[in-house]
């Protein structure tokens, strides 16, 4: 069995976002493997633990620094890592990214594809479902539990929906996007980190992926990104003082009469 795990490098969630000319000034910010992708890698590793002839291939499309996220995944225990990189891939939109990932997946072959539920930078939650569409395979998103029937040809996924959960069955190949709760991602061992340093990261360029700018599906002409802003600053807060009883009475009064939120 071959499992492809799509990973992305994102800005550390602890980072404060600062803007310059309505753009993110991210040069100085720490970057990490997208937290949801850790669940994806961990789930692949767990499958390999019970089905030994499994190969785990990490795939990432992005700048040079994205290799760090591939190294992080290799250190956790993935077998191979493929970096999709080419000057032609600069400034492509997420659909094109999904398309290129689908081209890579076709070249590699796969039974299962794992993605994170979403990347915690653009929060679009588009790549997983779009990739499944391009590969014409079923897709189950926001998965919190995953099991397989005996022959490893049918997956049973539990996923989070508003106000509850849903259990969905799918044949393989299929794509799953991974949510917190699915597992507890392991920390890479020292041995894993050393081994990851030695592993070669393969590069697929535009040529290899059969990609030219002309045929790319793109939304860059229909969605004009005009910039970022910071959320409205909240006004100076008010501290409500007094005895616990007074505080409670006052707060209820304010929420009812001034804020009118209850």
């Amino acid at each position: 069995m071959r499992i492809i795990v799509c990973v992305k490098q994102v800005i550390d969630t602890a980072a404060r976002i600062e803007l310059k000319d309505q753009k993110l000034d991210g040069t100085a910010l720490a970057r990490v493997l997208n937290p949801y992708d850790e669940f994806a890698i961990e789930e692949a590793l767990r499958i390999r633990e019970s089905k030994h002839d499994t190969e785990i291939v990490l795939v990432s499309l992005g700048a040079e620094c994205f290799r760090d996220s591939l190294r992080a995944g290799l250190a956790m225990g993935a077998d191979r890592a493929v970096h999709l990189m080419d000057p032609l891939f600069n400034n492509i939109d997420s659909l094109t990214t999904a398309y290129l990932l689908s081209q890579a997946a076709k070249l590699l072959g796969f039974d299962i594809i794992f993605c994170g539920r979403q990347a915690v930078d653009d929060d679009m939650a588009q790549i997983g479902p779009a990739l499944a569409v391009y590969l014409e395979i079923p897709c189950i998103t926001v998965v919190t539990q995953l099991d397989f029937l005996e022959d490893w040809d049918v997956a049973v996924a539990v996923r989070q929906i508003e106000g509850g959960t849903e259990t969905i069955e799918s044949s393989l190949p299929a794509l799953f996007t991974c949510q917190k709760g699915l597992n507890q991602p392991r920390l890479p061992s020292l041995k894993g980190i050393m081994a990851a340093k030695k592993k070669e990261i393969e590069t697929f360029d535009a040529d290899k992926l059969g990609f030219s700018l002309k045929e790319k599906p793109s939304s860059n002409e229909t969605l004009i990104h005009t910039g970022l802003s910071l959320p409205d600053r909240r006004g100076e807060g008010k501290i409500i003082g007094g005895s616990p009883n007074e505080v409670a009475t006052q707060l209820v009064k304010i929420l009812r009469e001034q804020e009118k939120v209850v």
Partner: protein
Amino acid sequence: MIVSKKILVFVESGENAIKPFAFEAIHAARILADALGGSVDALCLGIEKSLADSLVHWGADSVKIFVNPLFETITLEKALLSIEPLVNEQKPYAVFFSATTYGKELSASLSAKLNVGLLTDCVSIDLGKQGEVLVRRPVYAGKAISHVTLQGSGPHILSLRQNVFRGPSPDISRIGKVKLIDFKIPDDRLVLKIREVVRESGGQMDVTEARVVVSGGLGMQKPENFILLEDLAQVLRGAVGASRPVVDNGWRNYSNQIGQTGRTVQPDLYIACGISGSVQHLAGMSAAKCIIAINKDPNAPIFSVADYGIIGDALEILPLLTEEFRKVLGSSG
């Protein structure tokens, strides 16, 4: 130039009821359609005809109900096979979804099918000075807002964050067309099967849908104390949220986690109890209309986003607050 001014809304339903957030999407579509001089079409899968009137009251001009016994359960595949041909045929200017688990995966899949752009979790849709449509959506889990202008005749695919586009009230005098349409699904192409749907116990509202979220952090000390939050949430008809360590400790279910790696909520009222206010937590709730913080530590960062702060012991104040609310809300019905 905008050619078609039709806005198609995919209406989420389940257990033979329309999801409340679907009315928000209809309401948002109505406002945009009015600004553009266009119309609002709603697509429903397998609901009873009598339910459709409510969509008209909220602003739909016409409602299509696709009928097929297979719609007893709705999977991504079935929904995609239903909506894709309709969008191809109608060529609407925009297609609106709710930014729910279903809505997000369906809108993303449709964008790939049609090779058109997608905007997830939109929080505002406005008309610019030149009549262009301006959309805003949070990125970096709400730490920044991305501004996007829709260009060309569409279809543009948008999913709308819950709780943001609430309308005042439905207009029960509105009339519209409601049509039942037998819809054929090539069932040999269906792979996904829903085995089971489990509602969260106690019939509690989902944190993303609730107008009031009462959240607890490690300052709640132990899992048993969350009953204090549940009591308050019940009086306010809200939902209980939690910080990440609370979830990691197994005190609360993951679906309760608010923050960058949890749920992003935008309720009218967010009450943070014993939550320090880390960057990751703030990302998930700082867009709430009104924020209350109860914390022992006057220097806790949560106070920097709170509209009203109470410096004190949450365990002591919560029961008093619940009692006080019960008094005033009880008397006003």
